[in-house]
């Protein structure tokens, strides 16, 4: 049942997007996400949409997977559009009972929905094309200047790596325990709410015990290999940004710049 869940949804391919330096990808996504909130014109959105389609194409990742990553926010999207349609004051277009639909409402609703879609597509592009390991490496490298003011960048990255590493393990274990308790006559999907909550105890207690045991074992294994934090630690794969990486970042910045520049031709979110 957990097997089909997409978590850490990295899909390995040999595309240019995959091979970009993770730091460049993280920075690009941050810039684009900021850009999305600065853009007010539909032309700007269109611009970024076309760019995202281009990237999806280059990344060689099936569009279906992007559609899947939209699933969790379908309701959020629907509510956002709905409330903007009906609750924005302005020029009245038509009435649905007590609800008034305004021109401004439609504009704002479409703009917000479009923004959300773009946010999800661009962040999915990052997580679908970057392995969790590369992602945390990139994050650590980007955060390392902040070490000077006491931010434990390496430790943070290590924690994220370990957490990501253990998600599949814990899911697998949860599945196994659920099966074992089901084999003993437990039913996880029936009965009153109270019964279902109670049904979680035989699942959660063994799961937590297992997690603590694993944490303990991992700590011992790391200490046995002389792990003592980030100071003086070298890596097997050093991140190295090439000319093409910088070029990609420049391209992203130009695109965002252009998308913001066309703000002068229409403002849909005012």
């Amino acid at each position: 049942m957990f097997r089909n869940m997409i978590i850490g949804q990295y899909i390995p391919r040999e595309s240019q997007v995959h091979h970009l330096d993770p730091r460049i990808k993280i920075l690009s996504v941050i810039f684009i996400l900021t850009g999305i909130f600065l853009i007010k014109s539909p032309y700007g959105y269109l611009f970024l949409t076309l760019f995202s389609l281009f990237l999806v194409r280059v990344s060689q990742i099936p569009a279906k997977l992007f559609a899947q990553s939209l699933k969790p926010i379908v309701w959020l999207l629907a509510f956002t559009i709905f409330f903007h349609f009906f609750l924005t004051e302005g020029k009245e277009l038509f009435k649905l009972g007590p609800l008034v639909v305004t021109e401004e409402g439609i504009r704002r609703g479409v703009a917000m929905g479009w923004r959300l879609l773009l946010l999800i597509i661009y962040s999915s592009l990052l997580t679908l094309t970057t392995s969790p390991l590369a992602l945390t490496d990139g994050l650590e490298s980007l955060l390392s200047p902040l070490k000077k003011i006491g931010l434990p960048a390496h430790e943070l990255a290590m924690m994220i790596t370990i957490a990501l590493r253990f998600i599949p393990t814990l899911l697998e274990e949860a599945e196994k325990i659920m099966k074992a308790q089901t084999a003993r006559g437990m039913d996880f999907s029936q009965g009153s709410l109270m019964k279902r909550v109670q049904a979680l105890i035989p699942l959660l207690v063994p799961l937590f015990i297992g997690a603590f045991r694993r944490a303990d074992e991992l700590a011992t294994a790391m200490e046995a290999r002389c792990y003592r934090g980030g100071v003086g630690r070298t890596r097997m794969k050093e991140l190295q940004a090439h000319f093409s990486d910088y070029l990609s970042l420049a391209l992203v910045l130009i695109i965002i710049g252009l998308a913001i520049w066309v703000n002068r031709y229409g403002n849909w979110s005012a």
Partner: protein
Amino acid sequence: MSILVENLTHLYSENTPLEVVALDEISLEIEPGEFIGIIGQTGSGKSTLVQHFNGLLKPSQGKIYLEGQDINLKGVNLRLIRQRIGMIFQYPEQQLFEETVFADVAFGPRNLGLKEDEISQRVEEALSLVGLDFIQVKDRSPFQLSGGQRRRVAIAGVLAMKPDYLILDEPTANLDPGGRDEILALLEQLNRGEKVTIILVSHSMEEIAQVVNRLVVIHQGKIITAGSLFDVFSQEGKLEEIGLSLPQITILMHRLRQAGKQIAADIFTPEQAVKEIISRIRGKNYV
């Protein structure tokens, strides 16, 4: 009157790019009273196969019948089927969760909706079957027990449901030789004394040769060969091809035969070997 598996195919991550054929057109019948071994390498599909027997996994194709009843039909009471077909997973001690041994063993019977006195009687029986002292352990926390004892408590938890069929997935993993022999002896006792049909999943030929009377060999989701120990072990080449070797004692007996000694061909355990060799030596001297 059996577990009947017909053309069972199971796909993991069906209809995704990660689709894997775990089981490929498996057909198999398990008769009541049997002690059957299912052997295969890690990832061969043996655990996936047995999880179909009590409806924990649904087949992608094919059917499973328990005594003529298709267990995946709508309206079939799976809880009843899971009471009749008990399942002990690998490292069963990891599923313990209650505050006392008694409560944990009682979990299964309680789910069956039995009365309190019936439950406590069953708990007592199950604990004594696995060789634990009811009075001594019933109020202790399962987490205070030793690893071997915890495993026995977990097994008792399934036995307390009084299954007619008992599936065990690598029940001796991580046990010392003493603990292993105790578990295997318990299984033999259940099979002979309590008439429980036992389905033992393992990757160890040594272990399986000690106890089962029929053996099914699985490789990459397919049944490679099945039959009595003698039938299966006579196909040494085939087994080696898929990375399984005969029990060492059987190899030794084969060598002795090749060296011209008069030794029976159906020797699978050290005990049998000792008997056979002694009788051969005596035969030479005294007949």
